[in-house]
């Protein structure tokens, strides 16, 4: 295409294009370096330091790492709770979200009403939704247990029972399923109609149609929902913290030092432990170790996401 005789002009053009690209990318390049690259390196640095945010940091080698991984009493429960939530919450969200998605595609009357009803809770700010659920499920004063009692069901203590606190959080997250519903609905409407008709001609029942027509077509979206769900749940923080604090009934404001994870550390997640270590106990080193553990798990999941593609990077990239 271009003539070979005009090499200097071509080089000038290439340089101009490089500068143009850099110019357009510059906000993000600065942001990535300052707000991602720097803090990540600093987190690694602090993980080898003893630092209480007042005196100068001193090098302690692997002491923070040993402390967190071998001795810290709350590390085990926090990791267990986070993994429990990742498995149970993500699985149920995907199943329930798909169920609601299927339901919505089959509704014939009042579609607009039902779709909006299923979607609205997703928009509720997490703090507001959590405050509302702590009230609704409050064993003494909440309406839910009152109703259940009236129809003869002995209701659990929800957020106040260590065995029920995490399931209560799952219930709260199922209420906010709207985003998954929309994604699944779009995927379900994309399944080619002819395939259903062909399957029907072959005498396929509802189950076979789902298994052999619907499922293969929506697998990438299910994959996407699972992976992003895992990443989101690993960051699970606000709802667990607010629910624990409010259900404990302790009448103190934010920023107050209380042991997180009420009741019995059953709602303590890894991100809460990072906050507690770094901003309440001022054990910067241990908090940074824990951050890096979280980072390692998040990166493993992200790598899986890239490998499986899951709709995030297209082939042309």
């Amino acid at each position, binding site marked *: 295409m271009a003539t070979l005789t005009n090499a200097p002009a071509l080089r000038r053009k290439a340089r101009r294009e490089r500068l143009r690209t850099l110019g357009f990318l510059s906000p993000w390049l600065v942001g*990535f370096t300052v707000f991602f690259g*720097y803090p990540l390196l600093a987190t690694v640095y602090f993980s080898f330091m003893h630092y209480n945010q007042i005196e100068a940091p001193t090098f302690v080698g692997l002491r923070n790492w040993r402390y967190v991984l071998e001795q810290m009493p709350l590390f085990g429960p926090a990791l267990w709770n986070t993994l429990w939530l990742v498995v149970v919450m993500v699985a149920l969200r995907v199943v329930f979200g798909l169920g609601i998605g299927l339901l919505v595609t089959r*509704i014939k009357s009042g579609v607009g009403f039902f779709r909006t009803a299923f979607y*609205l809770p997703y928009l509720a700010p997490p703090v507001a939704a959590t405050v509302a659920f702590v009230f609704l499920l409050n064993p003494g004063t909440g*309406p839910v247990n009152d109703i259940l009692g009236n129809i003869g069901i002995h209701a659990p203590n929800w957020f106040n029972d260590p065995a029920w606190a995490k399931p209560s959080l799952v219930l709260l997250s199922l209420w906010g399923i709207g985003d998954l519903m929309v994604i699944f609905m*779009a995927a379900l409407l994309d399944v080619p109609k002819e395939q259903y008709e062909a399957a029907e001609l072959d005498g396929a029942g509802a189950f076979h149609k789902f298994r052999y027509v619907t499922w293969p077509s929506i697998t990438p979206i299910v994959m996407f929902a699972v992976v992003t769900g895992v990443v989101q749940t690993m960051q699970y*923080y606000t709802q667990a913290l607010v629910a624990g604090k409010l259900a404990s009934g302790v009448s103190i404001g*934010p920023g107050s030092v209380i042991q997180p994870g009420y009741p019995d550390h059953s709602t303590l997640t890894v991100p809460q432990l990072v906050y507690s270590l770094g901003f309440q106990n001022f054990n910067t080193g241990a908090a940074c170790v824990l*951050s890096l553990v979280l980072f390692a798990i998040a990166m493993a999941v992200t790598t899986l996401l890239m490998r499986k593609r899951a709709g995030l*990077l297209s082939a042309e990239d």
Partner: protein
Amino acid sequence: MTATTALSAPSAPARPAAGRSPAPAARRRAALHWIAVHTVAIAAALFFILPFVFVFLTSVMSDDQALSGDLWPTEWNWSNYADVFNTPGFLDWWRNSLMYAGLGTLFTVCSSIPVAYALAKFRFRGRRTAMIMVISTMMLPPQVIVIPMYLVWAQQLHLSGSLWPLIIPMAFGDAYSIFLLRQFLLTIPREYLESAKVDGSGELGTLLRIVVPMAKPGIAAVALFQFFYCWNDYFGPQIYAAQNPGAWTLSYGLESFKSAHSVNWNLTMAATLLVMAPVIIIFFFAQKAFVEGVTLTGVKG
């Protein structure tokens, strides 16, 4: 294009009977199917709607009744809402939430558009690496990097106790918005951009005059997402604003509101609805853009 059909379009019409009217047995089966689907749908809808209803009903009850587990208010205390607004600090929280969400959205949109455009339309070495880095940032739990960032903002820049440590970084692009906008910009045909260039438009001119007007729905979706993200954010304000109640946002203040009114569930529920209200009102006005954004993240690739 499924994005726009998601919430607004009616469902596909029932398949017409092939030529003749259906047999009575088939008609009865269809009717039973209709009843079954709608029964399940109504049951599900109750699960999604009743919490809002109970919260609202409690918000107008008297102090005592709100503690009783009653469902229906004996008297309607609309003054509860006035009491919430008269609580010291509540109006400040509104102002702070609006500032955080408003400026945050403005900064994010302005800084993310050029980056998304370059990633979608420029050919350069390292483009794939750049995309992987954007996605990695998107996936990074905020807790991983918060400690060193806090130390910089608090100890070097002395800006803790304000929302600026949350707002300023948004002037440098936001990974999620960049990703979403890029997915949207990929759908703009290259020919439009090339014809603009033939007409002598520079790259920046093309971006402002051709791409931005064409990408309005995508930009609207990103703006809404960012606004809601800031409005809902609890972790950020907790890190930077906790020490200074004058800098709290609604999402952060709500929990302390409950703690301060430890027995007043009615006022707390009124405040809860007031925190939800802007988001839900905006949604009803901008439903299409919002749903488009959700669909775009999940389905387009």
